[in-house]
C-alpha cells in the first residue's frame, strides 16, 4: 500500500505518463523488460537494454531524470525508494544469475564500443575531487548525470542498491579478485562511494542545481 504523503518518485511517474513522448518510450522499454521469452529466460535482456538506451536518448531529462534521480525521505524504503530502484526494471536489465567480478565486467564492457565510450565518459565526468565544493573535478553535475544515465542499457548498467540512502553499483563485486583487489575496489567505488555522483543526484532531487534541467548535447 502506497503512503499518502508526498512521493517524488510517484509524482515523476505521473508526469511521465501525462507527456506523450515520455509515456511512449517508457512503455517501449517496460514491455520488453517485463516479457518472458522462454521457461529459462525472464526477458530478452538485449532488447530491454536497447529500449532503455532509447528512453534516455529520446525523452527530455526533466522526465527521465525525474524518475531516475527522484529524492526520497530517509525513512521511506518502500513506496518511494523501491519505486526509484524499479525504474530500470532491474530484474531484467540489472540482476543476473551470477555476480561477476567488477574488473571482468569492465573488460566485457571494453569489448563493446557503446559501453567502452560511455564508461570512459562516466569516469571522466563523475571524477570526484576532494578540494572542490561540488565534489566533482569537472564541476558539472549535468555532465555527471548524463554520463551516469548513459551507462543504463550497457553491460555496466548501474542501479540503486537496496539499502539506506543513495548507494549505487553495477551488477558486480570484488570477491575473487586475487592480487587485483585494490584495483577492483577503486573501480567499484566510482559507483558505490563517489561524492561527485552522490552530490549530483541529490542536487537534482532537491532541485538545487537548475543547470541539470538543460539538455546537454551527447558526448
Amino acid at each position, binding site marked *: 500500500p502506497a503512503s499518502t504523503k508526498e512521493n517524488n518518485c510517484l509524482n515523476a511517474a505521473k508526469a511521465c*505518463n501525462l507527456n506523450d513522448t515520455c*509515456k511512449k518510450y*517508457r512503455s*517501449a522499454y517496460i*514491455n520488453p523488460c517485463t516479457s518472458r521469452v522462454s521457461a529459462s529466460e525472464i526477458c530478452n535482456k538485449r532488447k530491454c537494454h536497447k529500449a532503455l538506451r532509447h528512453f534516455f536518448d529520446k525523452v527530455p531529462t526533466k522526465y527521465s531524470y525525474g524518475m531516475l534521480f527522484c529524492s526520497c525521505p530517509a525513512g521511506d524504503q518502500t513506496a518511494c525508494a523501491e519505486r526509484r530502484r*524499479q525504474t530500470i*526494471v532491474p530484474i531484467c536489465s540489472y540482476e543476473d544469475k551470477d555476480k561477476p567480478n567488477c574488473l571482468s565486467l569492465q573488460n566485457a564492457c571494453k569489448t563493446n564500443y557503446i559501453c567502452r565510450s560511455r564508461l570512459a565518459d562516466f569516469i571522466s565526468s563523475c571524477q570526484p575531487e576532494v578540494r572542490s565544493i561540488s565534489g566533482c573535478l569537472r564541476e558539472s553535475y549535468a555532465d555527471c548525470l548524463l554520463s551516469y544515465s548513459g551507462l543504463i542499457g550497457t553491460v555496466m548498467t548501474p542501479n540503486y542498491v537496496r539499502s539506506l540512502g543513495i548507494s549505487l553499483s553495477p551488477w558486480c563485486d570484488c570477491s575473487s579478485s586475487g592480487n587485483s583487489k585494490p584495483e577492483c575496489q577503486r573501480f567499484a567505488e566510482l559507483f558505490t562511494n563517489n561524492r561527485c555522483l552522490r552530490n549530483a543526484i541529490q542536487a537534482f532531487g532537491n532541485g538545487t542545481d537548475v543547470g541539470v534541467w538543460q539538455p546537454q548535447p551527447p558526448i
Partner: protein
Amino acid sequence: RGGPGRGQGCALKQIHLNVTDLGLGYRSSEEMIFRYCSGPCRKSQTNYDKILYNLANNRKLPPKDTPSQACCRPTAFDDDLSFLDDNLVYHTVRKHSARKCGCV
C-alpha cells in the same frame, strides 16, 4: 480529425484519470490521459447508411434485424501505457485510448 467517413461532430476528447479509474482491476496511484471519441455521425452517412435507414422505416428488413448506423469510434489507438502498481509490479495496457476518430 480525419478517418473514414469524417463525421462533423465526431471528435477526439480527453480526460485526466487515475489508472484505478479505468476499472480494469489495476491498483496503482499513477495517472494518465484517456482519449475517447464522441459526437454525432449523421452528416457522414453513406448510401449504405441511408438505404438501411429507409429499409428499416419501410419494414423491408426481417423484423428482428436492426443493423447499426454509423457511430463515432476510434480508427487508431494511442501508444501503449505502462505503469507500476501499488505492489510494485509493472503492467502494460494496449488499445486503451483513442488516437483518431471516425464515423464507421
